[in-house]
């Protein structure tokens, strides 16, 4: 049997962030943290993609997570990054648990568009709500860590390390989940639901579980993004935000739990660079990048590493 290299790979990534973080400029730490936030969402999307489901509405849970964190900060003055992430994840999980009863009945384009519709409902609600800041959104106070407010120069680093712990921790748990009988059922569900049911497993239950996990990760990512940016707005639930997550998930591929974070980092890098070079046509650069990946690396970025390993 092959030895599982993933835990050590994840550990090395975490160590790299902790050690390398102080050497990075503030803007790079910001990109790195956002990459962890978006990577969490893409990690959840990867779980769904493995079972053959594409959600065009993960922004729903990203936004729920962000507004939960924002609410916690504004109403209860809780600025702790971890508490915000836990609360964001829990609220998103609860919402997904309820909506999952509906969504687990649908497949393919119906699943995708229904999830998109739900996220647009939330977008509409927030836009109409003055209490939630309408289209302007809300500002959130600076993050704290375990009750400590880091010095201004160190906030970005502290949040980046917290993000790395959360992201890598989640990646490890998802990696473990993929090894359980329920986790391994994903490709079988994608291939042949009839056979899965006639072997005695409930496809709907399996999809519901994956859907809730994906939402939990998205909620966590949303809370992290909120505290990092210091601002939340309804755009977080808009369908183009969901599109970015799918972009990242496709860029990354479904080969490994580390891939979504790499994909998100690359997405952030391309985005920043393209925006810098030509602010009006940055979408074109992103589109070109995605096109290249789909044509040359249909299994995503991770196939670069996977291929090298087997060669």
């Amino acid at each position, binding site marked *: 049997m092959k030895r599982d290299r993933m835990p050590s790979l994840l550990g090395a990534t975490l160590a790299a962030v902790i050690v390398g973080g102080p050497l990075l400029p503030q803007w790079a730490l910001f990109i790195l943290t956002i990459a962890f936030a978006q990577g969490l969402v893409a990690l959840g999307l990867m779980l769904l993609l493995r079972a053959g489901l594409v959600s065009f509405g993960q922004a729903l849970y990203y936004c729920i997570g962000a507004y939960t964190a924002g609410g916690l900060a504004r109403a209860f003055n809780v600025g702790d990054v971890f508490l915000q992430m836990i609360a964001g994840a829990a609220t998103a999980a609860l919402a997904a648990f309820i909506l999952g009863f509906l969504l687990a009945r649908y497949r393919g384009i119906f699943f995708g568009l229904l999830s998109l519709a739900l996220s647009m409902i939330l977008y509409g609600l927030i836009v109409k709500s003055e209490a939630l800041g309408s289209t302007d959104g809300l500002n959130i106070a600076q993050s704290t860590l375990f009750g400590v407010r880091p010095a201004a120069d160190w906030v970005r680093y502290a949040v980046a390390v917290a993000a790395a712990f959360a992201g890598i921790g989640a990646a490890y748990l998802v990696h473990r*989940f993929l090894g359980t009988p*329920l986790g391994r059922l994903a*490709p079988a569900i*994608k291939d042949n639901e009839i*056979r899965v*049911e*006639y*072997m*005695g497993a409930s496809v709907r239950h399996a999809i519901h579980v994956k859907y809730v996990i994906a939402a939990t990760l998205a909620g966590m990512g949303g809370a992290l993004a909120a505290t990092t940016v210091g601002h939340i707005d309804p755009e977080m639930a808009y369908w183009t935000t969901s599109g970015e997550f799918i972009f990242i998930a496709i860029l990354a591929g479904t080969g490994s739990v580390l891939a979504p974070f790499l994909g998100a980092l690359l997405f952030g890098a391309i985005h920043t660079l393209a925006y810098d070079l030509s602010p009006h046509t940055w979408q074109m650069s992103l589109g070109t990048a995605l096109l290249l990946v789909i044509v040359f690396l249909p299994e995503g970025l991770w196939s670069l590493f996977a291929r090298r390993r087997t060669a």
Partner: protein
Amino acid sequence: MSTLLAACGVNKSFGAVTAAADINAAIEADSVVGLIGANGAGKTTFINMITGYLKPDSGDIRYEGRDITALAPRDITRLGILRSFQIPQLYGSLSVYENMLTALGIMLHNAGRGGFFSRSRPHVPGHDAPAEEVAERILERFGLAEYREKNTQVLPGGVRKLLDIALTMAARPRVLLLDEPTSGVSAEEKFGIMEMVMKAMKAEGVTVIFVEHDMEVVSRFSERVLAFYDGRIIADGRPEAVLGDPDVRRYVVGGELRRRDEQAARA
């Protein structure tokens, strides 16, 4: 012998078409029952009602005395009633070995073993070994070991059929329903496949009900035959008796047998 599975006064129609008209049949434990009948006679409907895919309009299906009519297919599966398919239902993106592991994984999942917090490799319920070992064993038994790493989409028809049946062994079935196990399989392969399957089922004490169009296969492998015509069972008994029944010869196997008799007479 005791009754394991029974259909009691089962009716089913699809619009104007009657697929089951007052079907009564008691299947005994450890028996091998062949279902024959022309296309549309109600054989597959019978199997689909036992496995929960279709619900009868009236009447009920009993398993060990328990009414299972209203159960979902996966709950019926969990009771030990498994089925194979006329068109093999496999996991197309996975290898033969992975197909088997997935089947065994479902058994682990249903038994609550091998979950998130388990550290060791748990034994598959009913098999007393970890999934990897059981998978090898079943593949070996069905002569599928040489195809282990092959993707199921590139397998020859007969091998796909065998794998479709072998997957059910993961669940340690008590009853196995085979829907045309030899359809789409070459004449030379037919008997080999049936031989292998029946031997394995006998060894495991599995009650087998199979739908079959080839009367040679039916007479050789079944201990009892149910002949279907127009949603009714028109004959029920030992294969030689049923296949010799005038009604059965007229409505079910007429064409097939007459052709053979004529050939024999000419020879």
